[in-house]
């Protein structure tokens, strides 16, 4: 499943990283603590979080994540968007809760990130 497929299935809004939507999703990870994401999320994973500041982008870029889904309609600040554009990080947004997004991803057969 590609990021694009996920965007379509979950009706996500693409905020940044339009060019990288064909990337294959290797798994999913959910947490709002950056250190936890740093320790557990793997390259190609989609990270579900309601954090939306520039450091989320830094973590996503360092870990080479396929995308970050920002939940509960939280809008990333301009610095985060700009950084995401520079780093080519895919930021997606949804009004749904983290739980709902994760449940949906599991239903689509996306495994826990590893």
């Amino acid at each position, binding site marked *: 499943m590609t990021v694009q497929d996920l965007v379509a299935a979950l009706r996500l809004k693409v905020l940044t990283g339009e060019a990288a939507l064909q990337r294959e999703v290797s798994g999913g990870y959910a947490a709002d603590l950056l*250190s936890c994401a*740093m320790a557990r999320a793997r390259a190609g994973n989609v990270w579900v979080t309601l954090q939306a500041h520039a450091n989320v982008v*830094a973590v996503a870029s*360092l870990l080479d994540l396929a995308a970050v889904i920002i939940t509960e309609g939280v809008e990333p600040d301009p610095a985060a968007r700009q950084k995401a554009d520079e780093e080519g990080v895919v930021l997606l947004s949804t009004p749904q809760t983290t739980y709902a997004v994760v449940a949906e991803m599991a239903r689509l057969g996306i495994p826990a990130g590893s």
Partner: protein
Amino acid sequence: MGAPVVCERLELSTPWLQELRSAEQSSAADFAATTGLGGGHAVAESAREDQAISASRPVVPKSQELVYELKIGEIMTRDPVVVGPDCLMSELKEILRVRRISGVPVVDNGSLVGIISIEDLIVALEKGETSARVGDKMTRQVQTVYADESVIQAVTKFARYGYGRLPVVDRSGRLVGIVTQGDIVRGLLRQLDVQWQEEEIHRYRASHIFEDIESDQTGLVLRYKVTARDFVRGGEASSKLKKALERLGGEPQLVRRVAVAAYEAETNLIIHTDNGGDLIAEVQPDRIRVVALDTGPGIPDVEMALRPGFSTAPDWIRELGFGAGMGLNNIKSCADEMRLESRVGVGTRLEAVFYLPGRREKEAA
């Protein structure tokens, strides 16, 4: 024409094209299986080029990226041969034969009115209609692509309609070129070749640094200044370090471990220090040493600080997702060696060492 045989070879020898096809789902289904008749010779050359490229590095993701990056205008054939609607099929036969092409757009008074292909000609020849007008035999519903669209648009249309060629128009509808599947293959290969050569030169220069320079001990020191409370730039130093290590040809798993540790160390400098600090990476032939240095306030109880989940971060920092009390543990689990020294009122020195794969082999031997 030898095109069909060439096509088979092309398909067998181009796994990246197959990947491209699966990546684009069905959109590129016939992309490699059928090639414009006129493209035969050049495609044969392309197939050889492609073998040379794919033997030396995986090109799959790049080719996928390129079909989005490259514009149709960059790969199309400019100033294509065109005919008018009053051209006779017998004249068309000569044009196709002499120009070695397999179809032409039909233009009337400067605007595109249709397209006629070698297939239409064969049908007409079978029926003995050599003196029919092109205007009566052409396809009128012409699928076109824009010159400023991505190549993927053309790939998708080729797959959907099964045409051998697509006229290219500008946004005012003026015919500016024609694109065949052969043009796409050639365009992608040319671009891959250019980028590959540029990348190879960079990579070679960087990865041979330790072989080319002789000394008793060679090391490369990368020093990054980290500002306290500057969350907006958080991760910048470790991100730059990661890119530098990739440039140096570092093995991806190792680069990842160093980057995670460096990020946590950088974050600690941002959150906890009075005046920020330095993140220093020393790259040696057998190891990478990452040191985070600051001038205070210092850690009162180092043992406590190393306990998983222990955090002194204030609430506002925790709300940003930091301060989980896992940073030092992350560093420890990523590094092969870790040392933490601190004195209150003086500062803290964190050192994480990562062995390079070569060293382990040597030690085992």
